[in-house]
């Protein structure tokens, strides 16, 4: 079992390296950081531009592979290079990483837990009104793109606040820097509400559909009946025997759902003016900032594969059949 996980971890590390390298190559070959210096008034001398770009390892006159080696050498030692204008990618990342992780972590866990709960409930109430209502709303949510959903939420909140005459729910930014201590913590939570909702709704809908199907497969199985024949209440039998078994397949979707969550985060951060990794990616692409794009890609790859590893762990802990063989 431990060997199996170690092997998985090793393959994941290779995949991360591969994904990050490819992303760097793509960014380095398609982006043009020189453009930012060339169009300046007064014009900057070409030697100066070359020297600057060389210093940042962004010079398109150096062969791509050479730049890649320099970049990769830096990454291995923990240095992600310089931004297009000479700032430290590490510093920028340090500022932003927690912002994104906070959003993603809460979103993922909440999405998984609520999605599973909603799906299981919907399966138990199959064909009743609540099941149908959950079904229809899940599909609506899944059909609406995140950016639309987030914008709609922001507009609705704006109107709500205006109607109330005071700000009940914050709809922009991460926190109010003028507050401190306990107030600031509450303020941060308030700012979290809208982005979290817009991020998690999608994954709740996604998980609830999967979990409903898994649960329905299990509900008619003999072991649920056996559990009730033992003298367990229906609720206990459903929770302890049916849901516990039906969780296993859902756990394998964990990694996939995390990927969609990341794409969602890009929009959400932009729309609610959070300065996280997603917003940074958009800005970096606009600014032809090769090293920042590569850093965000690396972060994404690590996140996705960590989620995959987690879902392996989860499946192994849930399913003895995997553990034993």
């Amino acid at each position, binding site marked *: 079992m431990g060997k199996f996980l170690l092997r998985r971890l090793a393959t994941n590390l290779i995949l991360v390296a591969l994904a990050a390298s490819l992303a760097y190559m793509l960014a380095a070959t398609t982006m043009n950081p020189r453009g930012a210096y060339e169009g300046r008034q007064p014009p900057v001398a070409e030697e100066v531009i070359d020297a600057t770009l060389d210093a940042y390892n962004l010079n398109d006159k150096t062969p791509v592979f050479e730049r890649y080696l320099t970049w990769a050498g830096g990454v291995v030692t923990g240095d992600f290079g310089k931004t297009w204008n000479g700032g430290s990618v590490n510093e920028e990342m340090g500022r932003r990483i927690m912002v994104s992780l906070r959003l993603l972590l809460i979103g993922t866990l909440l999405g998984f837990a609520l999605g599973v709960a909603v799906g299981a409930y919907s399966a138990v109430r199959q064909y009743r009104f609540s099941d149908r209502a959950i079904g229809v709303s899940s599909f609506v949510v899944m059909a609406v793109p995140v950016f639309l959903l987030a914008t709609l939420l922001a507009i609705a909140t704006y109107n709500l606040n205006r109607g109330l005459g005071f700000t009940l729910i914050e709809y922009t930014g991460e926190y109010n820097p003028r507050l401190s201590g306990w107030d600031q913590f509450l303020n941060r939570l308030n700012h979290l509400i809208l982005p979290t909702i817009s991020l998690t709704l999608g994954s709740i809908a996604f998980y609830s559909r999967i979990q409903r199907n898994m649960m329905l497969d299990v509900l008619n199985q*003999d*072991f649920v009946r056996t559990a009730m*024949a033992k*003298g367990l209440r229906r609720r206990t039998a459903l929770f302890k025997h049916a849901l*516990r*078994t039906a969780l296993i397949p859902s756990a394998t979707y964990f990694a996939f759902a995390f990927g969609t969550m990341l794409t969602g985060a890009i929009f959400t951060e932009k729309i609610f003016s959070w300065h996280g990794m997603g917003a940074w990616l958009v800005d970096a692409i606009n600014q032809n900032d090769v090293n920042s794009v590569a850093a965000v890609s690396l972060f994404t790859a690590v996140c996705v594969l960590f989620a995959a590893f987690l879902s392996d762990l989860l499946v192994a802990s849930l399913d003895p*059949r995997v553990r034993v063989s």
Partner: protein
Amino acid sequence: MSILEVRDLTVTFPGGIQAVRGVSYDVAQGEVLGIVGESGSGKSVTSLAIMGLLPQNAVVSGSVKLHGQELLGMDEGELTRVRGKAISMIFQDPLSAFTPVYTIGDQIAEAVRVHQKVGKDKAAKRAVELLDLVGIPHPDVRAKAFPHEFSGGMRQRAMIAMAIANDPDLLICDEPTTALDVTIQAQVLEVLKTAQAETGAGIVMITHDLGVIAGMADRVLVMYAGRPVEQGVVDDIYYRPRMPYTMGLLASIPRVDGEQDTLVPIEGNPPSPAALPPGCPFAPRCPMHIDACDDEEPPLTQIGGGRYVACIRSREIEHKGMTGADVFPVPVIPPSDVARVPREERETVLELDNLVRHYPLMKGAVFKRRVGTVHAVDGITFDIAEGETLALVGESGCGKTTTLQQIMQLTPPQSGRVVVLGKDSSKLDKAARKALRGDLQIVFQDPMAALDPRMPVGDIIAEPLRAHGRKNVPQRVAELLTLVGLAPEHAERYPQQFSGGQRQRIGIARALALEPKLIVLDEPVSALDVSIQAGVINLLEELKNRLGLSYLFVAHDLAVVRHLADRVAVMYLGRIAEIGAVENVYDRPAHPYTQALLSAIPLPDPEMERSRKRILLEGDLPSPADPPSGCRFRTRCPKFARLSEAEKRRCVDEEPSVARLARAKDHGAACHYAEEIEVITASEHQEEQ
């Protein structure tokens, strides 16, 4: 004093489907009530209704009293105190009856803790005790195993352990041994008897197997179309049935001891619970049907001490002392012309010579490496003469199916030879192989899965004809349908419009399309109800005689084999243990495995069942990946245990091969110490007849 009183129990599902229509019975302390019926007769729904485990959309009425306390309409809290405590249930399929993610020990301990205020350690200790009681070896270790690590028989034992955990007053067993092999079934039935002795519980035993009921039950209730049609003491039901359905059922089961000439099938199919006929539901299939039968459904009336029958002509049946064979028309099967020629002078249609099929056992996800070999078929030899039926019998995992596949593939085997109609499969080219396929056809076990649901029956039967470029296809399809007892106009319909028995007939028609010489029958009747099964067996026999076919018949039901086969080969772990003419092998089995197998089969005869001594085998089939050295059966062999050390040596070191027994012409056994003994004795009733 009865523990359970069921009165006028009715279960209706949405859409007006009346699954159970007025069932009443009592069960006394320590008594075993057998409920017999075919699929759809409502026997399982009845027991689920008593447990309160039916889906919420089922409407249940009537009365179910346990110790005088009404169970129907009880709220969940009270019901959970009864379930698993006063009434326990054992389900059919032990594979899915345990939650796959918890250990067996935990699940039994859970049953203990639901009803008794004990700590976790104590409950776990009790679980181990219970597993020990039901005969699980090393119960302390096995309690920590997960359900998928248990074999089918072990799981059913664990199920029994769980059911008796709280010393119940009533045990409901719903087809407890149907999914198991015969030798395992015999073990589990013994365990059930132990469990009953331990708890003194009353048992409701639901099954379609009249043999199992004969040995276990004190009283029997026969159900048909959701209603009890006959009820009485076990001997009365078996020896003096008074309802034509019961009589037909008893006459239609093949017997492993029997010298029945022909099985008596019940024509037609059970009615759909959504569209019951007026009057007696059995009337459309009943040979004693008179006009008065259609007027109203006859009530279950008492005709003597504890004897109830629902038939308006029961007095007449009793008066005239009729049996199933008198009432039901006995089909006439034309004799075979080929059978008159001595076997040696007939052509050989199939010859297997030391056939071997091993599968590599692989490990690893990316770099696969071989870690062992599954010895699925390990050198078997037999032949089939023209017009002969050879049955291949054995428990699951003995290599029957692999042998079939190897024959049907018509490709060179790993080792040994397969010769079909004089042609060696290793020397065939593509064209010859295709031509030969026309002479070698197969009928599958599951008639539902064997027919394409989106193809009309006519096309299904025409497919082999078209593939081989035959002419006059529609005419031939009509002929074939008539041949298997269906009508030519059925060609337009789809498989789902037919019942199981009819579907199997369609499968047979397809196999016959190319006028084959040899048909391979892979468990052709095991998925069918008894009353339907008899008709298909008779059809197979008739076709064989009329068309001069040869059959290779694979089955686990030794009673069916005795009825249909001329010769039988008993397989154990990829080897043939015993082979010979049916009467030799059944009447004087020489291999200890055959003896155990035959003695494990329950007979539909209560007196014989009571007086029989079983040879019980211990444990499960060893893994074919790691067969024991020398004789493969020695690890479970009852004879091996009685041998002296010097004699045992030979079993361990030397693998026996099939040797002809001195006395018989066609009988061989693969045992160093083969000794013919009689396992199944003829009953008094049979002798009288």
